[in-house]
C-alpha cells in the first residue's frame, strides 16, 4: 500500500484527493463565512422582482395565501423565503393566510410567524390568519378554492373560523389575489393544477435550488408570475424588502462553498489533462 503511494505522480495525487480532505475544506468554507462576512451586494433577478412587484401593487383588501408545503429537511432553504414574503405581506397590510399542505409545515412556520407578527405589531386573526394542517393535500387545495371556511373549521390555535375577523369577507377563489407555494417537492404542480388552471388565481412559487430549473417553463408560459430559487432567491427578496436576515447570512456560506467546489473541479481537470497528455 505504502509502496503504491510512493509510485503515484503529482498529477495522480491531484485527481485522487481523499474525500475526507474535501469534506473538511467544504465544512470550513461553510462555517468560516458566518464569522467573517464579506457583505457583497446581492443582484436581484427578474423572477424574484416580479413577485415583489405583484405584492407591492396589492391593497389592504387583497388576500395572499402563503403555503409552506415542506418538511424540516429543506427548511434551511425555504423558511427564509417564507419569512421574507410573510414580512413583506405584513408590511403591505395585505390579508395573509399562512398554511401548509404538509403535516410538518405548521410546526416549522409557527415561530417565524410569531416573530414577524411581533416585529410588525400584527395580530393573528386581525392582520393575518394561521391555518392548521388538514389531511388531503390536493383535496385541500380544491376545497379551499370552493369554500375557505368549510375547509378550515378553526385556525392553528383552535379559534373557531366564524370568530376570526380577517376571514369574514373571504369566501373562495374569487377573493384570492396571490398564492405562493414554498416546496421542495412537486406540490407546486398541485396548486397549478387545482388552483391556477381551473380558477385563474395568480401564482408564484419558492423552490429549492435543485428544483429551480423545473420552474422556468411555467414562468415563460405565464402560469407563474415569478419564482424564488433556493437560498439565493430568499436573499434577493430580503434585499428587496431591505431586511438582511437568515438568507443573506447564508449566502456568504453558499458563496464560498460554490467557489471551493469550482476550484476542486478545476484541480481535478488539470490533473486529468496532464495525465491524458502524458499517455
Amino acid at each position: 500500500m505504502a509502496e503504491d503511494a510512493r509510485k503515484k505522480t503529482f498529477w495522480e495525487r491531484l485527481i485522487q484527493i481523499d474525500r475526507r480532505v474535501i469534506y473538511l475544506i467544504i465544512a470550513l468554507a461553510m462555517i468560516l463565512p458566518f464569522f467573517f462576512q464579506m457583505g457583497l451586494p446581492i443582484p436581484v433577478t427578474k423572477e424574484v422582482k416580479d413577485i415583489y412587484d405583484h405584492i407591492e401593487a396589492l391593497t389592504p383588501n387583497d388576500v395572499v395565501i402563503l403555503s409552506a408545503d415542506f418538511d424540516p429537511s429543506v427548511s434551511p432553504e425555504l423558511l427564509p423565503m417564507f419569512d421574507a414574503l410573510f414580512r413583506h405581506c405584513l408590511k403591505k397590510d395585505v390579508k395573509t393566510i399562512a398554511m401548509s399542505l404538509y403535516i410538518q409545515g405548521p410546526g416549522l412556520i409557527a415561530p417565524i410567524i410569531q416573530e414577524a407578527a411581533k416585529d410588525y405589531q400584527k395580530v393573528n386573526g386581525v392582520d393575518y390568519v394561521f391555518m392548521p394542517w388538514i389531511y388531503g393535500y390536493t383535496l385541500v387545495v380544491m376545497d379551499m378554492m370552493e369554500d375557505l371556511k368549510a375547509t378550515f373549521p378553526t385556525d392553528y390555535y383552535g379559534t373557531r373560523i366564524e370568530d376570526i375577523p380577517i376571514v369574514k369577507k373571504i369566501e373562495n377563489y374569487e377573493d384570492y389575489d396571490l398564492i405562493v407555494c414554498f416546496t421542495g417537492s412537486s406540490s407546486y404542480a398541485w396548486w397549478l393544477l387545482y388552483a391556477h388552471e381551473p380558477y385563474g388565481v395568480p401564482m408564484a412559487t419558492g423552490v429549492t435550488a435543485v428544483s429551480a430549473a423545473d420552474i422556468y417553463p411555467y414562468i415563460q408560459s405565464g402560469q407563474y408570475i415569478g419564482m424564488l430559487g433556493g437560498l439565493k432567491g430568499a436573499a434577493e427578496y430580503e434585499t428587496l424588502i431591505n431586511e438582511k436576515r437568515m438568507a443573506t447570512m447564508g449566502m456568504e456560506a453558499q458563496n464560498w462553498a460554490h467557489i471551493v467546489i469550482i476550484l476542486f473541479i478545476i484541480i481535478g481537470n488539470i490533473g486529468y489533462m496532464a495525465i491524458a497528455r502524458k499517455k
Partner: protein
Amino acid sequence: MLWKKQIPLAITFIMGLILGIQYFVPSSTSDWVFDEYRTWGIIIGLFGSVLAYISFYRAHGMRIKKKAPAWPFSVVAIAMSLAMAFVGFAFGREENTVFMNMYTYILVPIEGTMFSLLAFYISSAAYRAFRARSAQATALLVAAVIVMLGRVPLGEQISFWHKLWPALPTFTDIANWILNVPNMAAKRGMGLGIGLGIMMLSLKIVLGIERSYMGSGE
C-alpha cells in the same frame, strides 16, 4: 379472486369514467359529484393512513423478529413513533410542550442535517465526475461552473469585463440565459413527454391494462 381482482378493477374503471365525465361535462350534477369526491377522498385517505401505520409497524416488527441487518434502527423507529404519539396525546401539542420540543429540537435538526450532507457528497462527486473527457462533457462542465458562479454574489463581483464594457453580460446574466433558454427547451421537451406518459398510464389504469398498483406484479 373476485375481491382481489375484479372488484378493484371495476371500481377503478367506474370511478375513472365518472371523474372523466365530471371534468369534461360541466353541470350541477358534475358539481355534486365533485363535492362528493372531495369528501370521500379525505375519508378514504385517512383510512389509508391507518393502513400505513399498520404496514410500518409490521415491516419494522418483522425486521426485529428476524434480526435483519441494522435491526436496532427498527427498534428506534418504533420506539420514537410511539413516544411521539404518547407525549402528543398525554401532554398536548401546543407550544413549549414535550411534543413540540421533540419536534423542534430533535426531528428538525436531524432532517436538516441529513439533507445538508448532500453538500459534502456533491462536492466530492463533482470533483471526481466533472471531467472534460469529450466535447459534450466539456459543455456540461462549463455550463455547470457558470451557473454555480451566477448563483452567488461573488459571480457578479468577479465579472470584471462587465465593468469595462457594460454591454457584456456578467456571470449572473449568462447563468440566467442558460436557465431560461437551453435548460427550458430541454425541460419543456421532457415535460411534454412526461405529460403524455401520465395520460397513457392513467388510461391504462382506468381500462385495467396496467394492474401493478394492485400488488399482483402483473
